[in-house]
């Protein structure tokens, strides 16, 4: 139990997907202008990332390895992720139209979120067992949401700040992200694995 808790904490804070592993930067920079949309994107990604981690693990160990067709991994994983995104969209629309209103526009974007494919591949590379894969997927997604919300909050303030003209917009965003990343480096050593 402790092992899984440490893995969760480690993936969410210490080895944060966005700030340390550099995955999922496009939505991190693209959808973090407003706090509301950052939260929506965070929840949608959490859902898809966890499901995709599960689906890709099953695919790897029940199809790709027994049949010895590992060279099809990239191709099959991207298809599985697209299918999971599509499935999530249908389920959410059917059972919770309110949630669909909030998350709907973000769902198609998640297919090209490299955090989803990245975490699926890292799970295979690290030879995680099934439960660990689930925890790793969920932990990464929690880390993604956390950083996304923090960064959106900072950017809302930043929009009102006076910065040198050359730095306005994206450049100052990157520099603030760098400072945030520096702050997260303080977590290293919290969990040693």
């Amino acid at each position, binding site marked *: 139990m402790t092992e899984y808790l440490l893995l969760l904490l480690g993936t969410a804070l210490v080895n944060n997907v966005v700030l340390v592993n*550099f995955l999922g930067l496009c939505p991190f920079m693209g959808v973090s202008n407003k706090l509301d949309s950052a939260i929506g994107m965070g929840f949608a990604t959490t859902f898809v990332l966890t499901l995709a981690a599960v689906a890709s693990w099953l695919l790897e160990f029940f199809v790709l390895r027994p049949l010895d067709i590992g060279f099809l991994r*990239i191709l099959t994983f*991207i298809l599985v992720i697209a299918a999971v995104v599509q499935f999530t969209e249908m389920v959410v629309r059917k059972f919770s139209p309110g949630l669909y209103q909030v998350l709907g526009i973000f769902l198609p974007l998640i297919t090209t979120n*490299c955090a989803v494919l*990245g975490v699926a591949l890292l799970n295979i590379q690290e030879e995680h067992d099934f439960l660990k894969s689930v925890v790793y997927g969920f932990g990464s997604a929690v880390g993604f949401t956390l950083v996304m919300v923090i960064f959106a909050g900072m950017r809302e303030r930043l929009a009102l700040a006076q910065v040198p003209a*050359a730095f306005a917009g994206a450049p100052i965003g*990157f520099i603030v992200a760098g400072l945030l*990343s520096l702050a997260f480096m303080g977590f290293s050593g919290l969990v040693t694995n």
Partner: protein
Amino acid sequence: MSNGFNKIIRDGLWDNNPGLVQLLGLCPLLAVTGTLINGLGLGIATTLVMVASNLTVSLIRNLVRSEVRIAVFVLIIASFVTAVELAMQAYFYDLYKVLGIFIPLIVTNCSIIGRAEAYASKNTPLNAAVDGLFMGLGFTGVLVVLGAMRELVGMGTILAQAHIMFGEAARNITLELSATHEGFLLAILPPGAFIGLGLIIAAKNIIDRRMTAREALTTTQTATSQA
């Protein structure tokens, strides 16, 4: 005709650079630029995929129905990435190990599917291939500049570990800034990547502004001299 190519080249390398202006494909851009060689390696791999996928998408652009086009594009890109990954595993094993997960992640580099959708699916194969080549080179350029910057500040060298890409003969082409430079670790660590890219984009903004100002000046000068 050559005018059209000029525009494509300018767009890819500067005006519409995928890394600096479109802000696409950020993950590999920041992740692998610890050294110049790593950046160059991934840049070349990305360029290859981009040229091949743009060419293929353009060739089949009239055969694919628009409802399924995105899925088809993704599959085409994934196939080329698999080919590049296997080729690198065979010929550049050390580089393959260093770049690791970011080779398969070329699939989700949004700038590739972005070009397929926005340009290749509407233009002739030749134009699409040239566009892919220069978009890829523009991306590679940013990778190389950021890699060189971080390597120089962080370790005081340029072209370290060149042998993993150019073979044993290139082991000694590493340039060292000074033997006493201890390195500024922040530049190699993740925060350095973010801050470095922020500075590069800011520098591009300044250069762009200077160029517009100069152009405006020359136009007014010619206008007054004509009058």
